[in-house]
């Protein structure tokens, strides 16, 4: 049984080499990429810090890297660290006052909601540099070759698959490290009884800032990769309320208390979006958002642990012997 995850991982890593079509491969890359982003969100979200502002970090990752490349010819390899620093600064600027003054729960969610919208509006307002709501494409460096390491551009989807796979695995590793740390217990304690946590010496502000930083940086990396992979971003796809809500929905649908839950959520939201698109085309514009909203309510009521969380629980209940399902 212990070898099972590794076998599945090997199968996943080898699957594209078996002559997978372009479209399934594209979907797989998307699932892993968004799975990583959702994992990053859940690292803090499952500890009671529900953020609707992660669109801002996604947007910083995507736009900073693309803008630096387009305007100054700065390689994404340098642009990404710059974007990370910026995302960290924004995370601290929004996090510190919130945590210092005990803005928690719904109020925290509202503050972060504003953040993601500010990011979107900024991108739109700076249209001379960002292309506004029409979006922007990183200048191609693929005129002579099928790949450009400097520009982080690869025309071969396989390359992207392995990049994204590695990043996704790194995300799961971060989750595991956080999970095994005393800080996770402390953050759970904080989410239940913040004052009592302080009274036993836990530095509430510092721990919350730490986890927010990890989460923001992961999301920022996800945004940068998304822009490079798609070779196109627009404000709605990487910033604003829409994408931030979608993140929360995906995570809740997949299950944020188990390690693979966010990835399952990413697969679920992508499949849902794709099938809606195939069924209705682009004629019904806000249909997907409406359905997300409805399903979000249904999930919260009937399956609060999400698809994977609920499924694991059902399996555990069926088996007479308690399996040490250490997926979390």
């Amino acid at each position, binding site marked *: 049984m212990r070898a099972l995850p590794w076998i599945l991982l090997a199968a996943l890593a080898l699957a594209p080499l078996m002559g997978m079509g372009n479209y399934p491969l594209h979907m797989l890359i998307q699932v892993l990429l968004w799975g990583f982003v959702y994992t990053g969100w859940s690292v803090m979200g499952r500890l009671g810090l529900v953020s609707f502002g992660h669109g801002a970090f996604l947007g910083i990752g995507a736009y900073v890297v693309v803008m630096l490349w387009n305007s100054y010819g700065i390689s994404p390899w340098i642009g990404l660290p710059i974007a990370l620093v910026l995302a960290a600064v924004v995370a601290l600027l929004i996090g510190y006052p919130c945590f210092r003054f005990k803005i928690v729960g719904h109020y925290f969610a509202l503050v972060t909601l504003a953040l993601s919208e500010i990011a979107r509006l900024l991108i739109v307002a700076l249209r001379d540099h960002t292309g506004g709501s029409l979006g922007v494409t990183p200048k191609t460096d693929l005129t002579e070759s099928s790949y450009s390491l400097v520009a982080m551009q690869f025309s071969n989807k396989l390359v992207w698959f392995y990049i994204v796979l590695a990043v996704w695995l790194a995300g799961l590793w971060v989750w595991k490290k956080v999970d095994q740390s*005393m800080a996770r*217990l*402390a953050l*759970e*304690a904080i989410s*239940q*009884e913040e*004052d*009592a*946590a*302080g*009274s*036993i*010496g*836990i*530095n*509430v502000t510092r721990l919350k800032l730490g986890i927010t930083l990890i989460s923001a940086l992961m999301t920022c990396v996800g945004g940068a990769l998304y822009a490079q992979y798609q070779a196109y971003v627009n404000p709605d796809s990487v910033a604003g309320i829409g994408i931030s809500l979608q993140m929360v929905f995906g995570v809740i649908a997949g299950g944020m208390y188990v390690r693979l839950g966010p990835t399952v959520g990413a697969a679920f939201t992508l499949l849902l979006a794709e099938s809606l698109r195939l069924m209705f085309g682009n004629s019904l514009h806000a249909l997907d958002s409406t359905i997300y909203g409805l399903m979000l309510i249904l999930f919260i009521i009937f399956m609060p642990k999400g698809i994977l969380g609920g499924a694991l629980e059902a399996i555990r209940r069926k088996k007479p012997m308690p399996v040490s399902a250490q997926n979390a």
Partner: protein
Amino acid sequence: MLSVREITKVFGGFKAVDRVSFDVAEGEILGLIGPNGSGKSTTFNLIAGALAPSGGSIEFLGRDIAGSPASHVARFGIGRTYQIPRPFRKLSLLDNVALAAYYGQSEQPSREKAYAQAQDALGLVSLPSSEHARVDGLGAAGLKKLELARALATQPKLLLADESLGGLDESEMGAAADMLAMIRDRRGVTIIWVEHIMGVLMRVVDRCVVLDHGEVIATGKPHAVANDPKVIEVYLGTDAEEVQKGIAQRQGDAT
């Protein structure tokens, strides 16, 4: 070891605590008493760092701690309990207490040591220390014990025990009082015990500070305080019988 000087706390226009001063000597159990609304909980929260004083100083082991955040105060060596227990409900008892041991000491112990200290603290208050023991199912007395264990795991030199024993019956109250005495005797922890019922407290405290309307109205040995006309007036003799009973239960107290 603790010296409170003229601390004042103003909420809006209301002086909840007005120039309160008292000292706590190492190894004693000090009863901080007074009727509801007398400012004892506020005083307690000022010492614990849950509130910042509007004025005055609080010196603990030679360091002014007035206005320090609660998490710092905990690491300086002051543990506290809550009047209404605030357990981390979704964590096991052991994790509840281990967190205190891990984060609440001036020098952070290893994880193994923190868990060993947590088991020790749980044992001291006679709560189960297995990994599976949960908070659910603990009664009022059990939750009080958990509060104590969590505070003790920070290895405090001074324990602030906010013991509104309201939810407990008489024998549980007696047991809680004996537990505080046992903690002082075995661990050498100095204790400030906040209470509004005087009876059971009289059994174990060495000295009392009585507050009323935010001011200290009496300080001294239990029976001296209990016979103080000002204190009797404040309590309107409501539990005079209980007080006498508590004093009668004191063992080997010649004064």
